């Protein structure tokens, strides 16, 4: 080994034998001055250059000045004829080219090297040259590049081809002219030249589909020797198939299938992978079509090479997602992989099996997983848990086995994310499958007895409070919950108190006991826990169902940020009237639900459902709701603000009043207040040669509506959006409050220079543009509200303003479509999960809750039935509300 030691001195300096230990950028750059010595000392300079490259490789960054200095010093080294040093200089050029300035100075010397006699220089010189060349310089060296592409030395040709591909990213047009050379190179005997040439040729022709298909057809015939080239050709063929959407008898598909018989494993796998990707992306694939690909992957499964097994099972897993039946033939091979030493392979095998397995094999699989689950990392455990969740939805009858397995996982060691994934899965199984509820809840109870994750414990306590009181034997949960009050930290104790209160509100026989427990909690050391206990105790002590449901069971109907704002305003300006919570905009149920969905199910810790006011206030950084944003925007429009419309009730989603590709694009957002509507027209001018002035919208209002104010948009430049507002007063009679308005955009056009946007002359002409009608519907005036106990709310509101009617929805012939349409039309919240129609049912009850503008609560109970005679859905609708005209409006609107 000593014979390899080059520099004894460095060894001593480095101490541990690493000559690069403790290198410092400044001193290395200082050393680089030796580059200027004449004659050049190749060994010394190679060493210094290596140090510079090493530092950059370690992540050290050079400033432009440092890099430029080093670069220029390096150019001196071209004097030396030492090949090793020259190669290092090329590397240095490539490394410093992006940072240093004036790098084109070495163009001529590199050009000389690339065309010179020294074969060792030429390929590397080409690659270095291309690193410093920009579009303008490229023309100067174009001739040499063309020659290099067709050079008889493969390395030179490859270097030129790869560099050309690299340069395509910014100088595509010039490179395109090299098509003949690339064409010639494709026919080369050298496999690597063939590969790189195919890539370049495809790049040059890729926008010309006919040329590409010719290229592919030609190459498929000539049988590419290079496995890489074959892989690339498969990929190109895939793109063609996707773009052309050719049928199953496409010649490209035939080519890919023929590659399954290639002698290189690389190509076989690439072809199998391509077939799987192609076939699984179209839904109508039979397992037979995937057959050939699946059977080569099956062979790979028993390979001694881990990479091959990994590749096979990873691809089979993809097949199982869409076509589990196609993989069924491999089940035996996959089962062998469960015990694979490589845990990634084992996990992929398991999850694939869980997708393909039959109901009867679930028990066996669970047993097998149990044997190795403790050995794999959390990351993979989460994957396994995800697969079990899918299994739970697929085979609801197996909930017992799955639940037992999950609870044993809960007892094992694991991080928060993993535990949250398990808890999430149990919760999903519980909510989808009422039979599993009791068992699931008791597993979770057991888990919180010994759970170190506060967020998870809080979440489970919340679930217990929600589901526990409705079980057959609510009393058994009390002990688990109260134990938390005794043993845990303040956050968990507070959550436990809230859960207890829910039992008290729903289970009359437990109430006295709950009151005793809550009374004890009032002595807690923590403010929050005491506050909650006192609050709940006071309400429960009244023994009033209405109070219970309003203040304990149902969530706060308004958004906390809006409430905070309203309260702040109220305290700023003290008046004698008490604060009215109805003046606060309602929270959008859909927004919170969406936010939860975005957070993603497995990261359960983040989706802790917060229900009570206190918990919501505790939640970190309150974000402004969409409504708040609009409210403050409208407050900034003087003529709208002057009307003093009160709090904003609801803002609709923007609706298009024009086609998307027209001269002017107009969108309308409807802001509903308790008595008024503000229409916000967002207009965009898509004509670069026009400037619009005094843009306004002429609206034809039906009887009863009154236009109070209009805010025109003074100027509408090309591609800068402007806004027009119109304020309308709604009719007094609520039942007249639905309407459709004809709208016309009116403006003065001034022709202008597209380049500068300046008008050509001072005068313009008036013009108008018809828009689509603006509709004000029921949904615009109703806000979604979640009722946890619909039946209770229904009784509370009473039959005073009840109206009912029956309708035939002939246009719809599926129950779930009908449910979706009704929910959308009324803009109300579906309660008690009635928005999900269980499969195979012919009738369904949909419960909806909402608040009408002005703060009137509305509840709707619908019964939907498939009617065999009329082909459609029959709907019986029953409305209760706090105002008779609101009920009337809703029954009218549906008809």
């Amino acid at each position, binding site marked *: 080994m000593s014979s390899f030691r080059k520099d004894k001195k460095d060894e001593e300096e480095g101490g541990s034998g690493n000559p690069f230990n403790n290198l410092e950028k400044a001193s290395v750059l200082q050393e680089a001055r030796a580059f200027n010595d004449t004659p050049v000392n190749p060994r010394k300079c190679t060493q210094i250059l290596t140090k510079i490259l090493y530092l950059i*490789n370690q992540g050290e960054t050079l400033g432009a000045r440092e890099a430029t200095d080093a670069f220029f010093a390096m150019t001196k080294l071209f004097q030396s004829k*030492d090949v090793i040093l020259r190669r290092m200089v090329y590397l240095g050029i490539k490394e410093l080219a992006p940072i240093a300035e004036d790098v084109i100075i070495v163009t001529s010397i590199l050009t000389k090297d690339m065309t010179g006699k020294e074969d060792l220089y030429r390929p590397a010189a080409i690659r270095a040259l291309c690193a410093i060349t920009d579009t303008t310089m490229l023309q100067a060296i174009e001739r040499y590049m063309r020659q290099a592409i067709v050079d008889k030395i493969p390395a030179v040709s490859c270097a030129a081809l790869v560099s050309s591909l690299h340069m395509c990213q910014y100088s595509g047009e010039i490179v395109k002219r090299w098509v003949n050379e690339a064409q010639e190179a494709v026919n080369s005997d050298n496999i690597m030249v063939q590969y790189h040439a195919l890539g370049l040729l*495809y790049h040059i022709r890729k926008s010309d589909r006919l040329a590409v298909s010719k290229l592919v057809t030609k190459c498929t015939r000539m049988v590419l020797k290079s496995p890489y080239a074959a892989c690339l050709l498969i990929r190109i063929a895939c793109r063609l198939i996707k773009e052309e959407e050719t049928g199953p008898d496409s010649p490209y598909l035939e080519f890919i299938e023929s590659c399954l018989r290639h002698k290189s494993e*690389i190509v076989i796998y690439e072809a199998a992978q391509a077939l799987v990707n192609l076939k699984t992306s179209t839904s109508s694939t039979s397992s037979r079509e995937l057959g050939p690909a699946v059977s080569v992957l099956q062979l790979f499964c028993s390979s001694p090479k*881990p990479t091959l097994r990994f590749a096979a099972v990873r691809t089979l897993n993809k097949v199982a997602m869409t076509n589990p039946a196609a993989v069924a033939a491999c089940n035996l091979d996959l089962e062998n992989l469960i015990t694979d030493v490589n845990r990634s392979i084992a996990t992929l095998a398991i999850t694939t099996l869980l997708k393909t397995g039959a109901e009867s094999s679930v028990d066996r699989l669970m047993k097998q997983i149990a044997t190795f689950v403790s050995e794999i*990392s959390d990351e993979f455990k989460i994957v396994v848990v995800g697969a079990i969740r899918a299994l739970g939805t697929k085979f609801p009858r197996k909930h017992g086995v799955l639940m037992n397995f999950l609870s044993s996982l809960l007892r094992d060691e694991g991080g928060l994310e993993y535990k949250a994934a398990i808890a999430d899965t149990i919760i999903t199984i519980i909510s989808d499958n009422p039979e599993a509820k009791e068992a699931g809840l008791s597993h979770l109870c057991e888990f919180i007895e010994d759970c170190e994750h506060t967020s998870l414990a809080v979440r489970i306590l919340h679930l217990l409070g929600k589901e526990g009181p409705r079980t057959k034997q609510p009393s058994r949960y009390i002990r688990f919950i109260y134990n938390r009050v005794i043993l845990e930290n303040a956050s968990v104790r507070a959550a436990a108190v809230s859960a207890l209160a829910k039992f008290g509100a729903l289970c009359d026989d437990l109430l006295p006991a709950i009151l005793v427990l809550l009374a004890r909690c009032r002595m807690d050391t923590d403010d929050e826990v005491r506050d909650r206990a006192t609050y709940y105790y006071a309400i429960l002590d009244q023994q009033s169902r209405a109070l219970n449901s309003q203040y304990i069971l149902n969530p706060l109907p308004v958004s906390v940020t809006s409430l905070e704002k309203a309260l702040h305003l109220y305290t700023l300006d003290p008046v004698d009237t008490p604060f009215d919570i109805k003046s606060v905009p309602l929270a959008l149920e859909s927004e919170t639900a969406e936010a939860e969905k975005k957070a993603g199910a497995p990261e359960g810790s983040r989706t802790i459902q917060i229900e009570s006011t206190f918990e919501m206030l505790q939640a970190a950084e309150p974000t402004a709701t969409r409504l708040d944003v609009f409210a403050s925007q409208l407050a900034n429009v003087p003529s709208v603000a002057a009307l003093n419309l009160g709090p904003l009730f609801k803002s609709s989603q923007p609706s298009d009043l024009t086609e998307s590709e027209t001269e002017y694009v107009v969108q309308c957002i409807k802001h509903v207040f308790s008595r008024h509507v503000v229409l916000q027209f967002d207009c965009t001018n898509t004509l670069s040669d026009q400037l619009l002035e005094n843009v306004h919208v002429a609206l034809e209002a039906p009887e009863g509506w009154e236009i109070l104010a209009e805010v025109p948009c003074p100027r509408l430049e090309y591609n800068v959006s402007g806004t027009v507002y119109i304020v309308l007063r709604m009719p007094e009679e609520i039942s007249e409050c639905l309407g459709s308005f004809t709208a016309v955009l009116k403006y003065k056009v001034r022709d202008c220079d597209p380049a500068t946007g300046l008008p050509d002359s001072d005068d313009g002409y008036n013009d108008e543009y018809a828009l689509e009608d603006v509709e004000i519907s029921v949904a615009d005036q109703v806000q979604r509200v979640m009722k946890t106990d619909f039946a209770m709310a229904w009784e509370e509101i009473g039959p005073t303003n009840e109206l009912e009617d029956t309708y035939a929805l002939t246009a719809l012939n599926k129950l779930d479509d009908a449910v979706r349409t009704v929910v959308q039309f009324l803009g109300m919240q579906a309660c008690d999960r009635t928005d999900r129609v269980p499969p195979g049912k012919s009738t369904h009850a949909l419960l909806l809750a909402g608040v009408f503008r002005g703060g009137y609560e509305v509840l709707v109970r619908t019964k939907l039935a498939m009617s065999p005679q009329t082909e459609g859905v029959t709907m019986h609708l029953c409305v209760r509300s706090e105002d008779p005209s609101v009920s009337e409006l809703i029954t009218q609107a549906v008809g």
Partner: protein
Amino acid sequence: MGDRSVFDMMRSISALVLLDLDGSRLIAHYYDKATFPDLKSQKVFERKVMRQKTLLKSEISFIDDLICLNLNHSDIRFFVAGPLGGNELVMKEFLACVVELLRVMFKETLSCQSLMENMHAVFILLDEICEAGVILETNPLTIVDRLRARSVRSIEDMTLGELLEFAKEKLMTM
């Protein structure tokens, strides 16, 4: 997939990383600048590969949205990463070529120490195998032949020439 440039389509390798037993970087080439835009993301990746037992013990695993392969030789850990849409067998061949070349060149003494001492040779060698993630050549014999042609005559620096000469013999007899 739809708008990927051909260069991305041909880039089989996202990263090649050589670490020592403690996980310190010996040499690292991150070709995929979109996945590894800065030193921080690279260091995170290097920490992750060292923590993944499956990868270290048996060759291949996922690291985030990448497929990662590992090969250990004496006190050096070699890692190659590629995209999920990539071909792990190509990555494997590439990795095998890198290790094989270094191994035959440094006789049986390939270690962190010999690697460090001949860093310049390693830089040149890797430059012959791969350019910006596109594989140039994976046949060790071809690569050695290309470099050997003249390096032997480099008067000032015999090391690389000597190593290559040895490697050639070794490869011929295999």
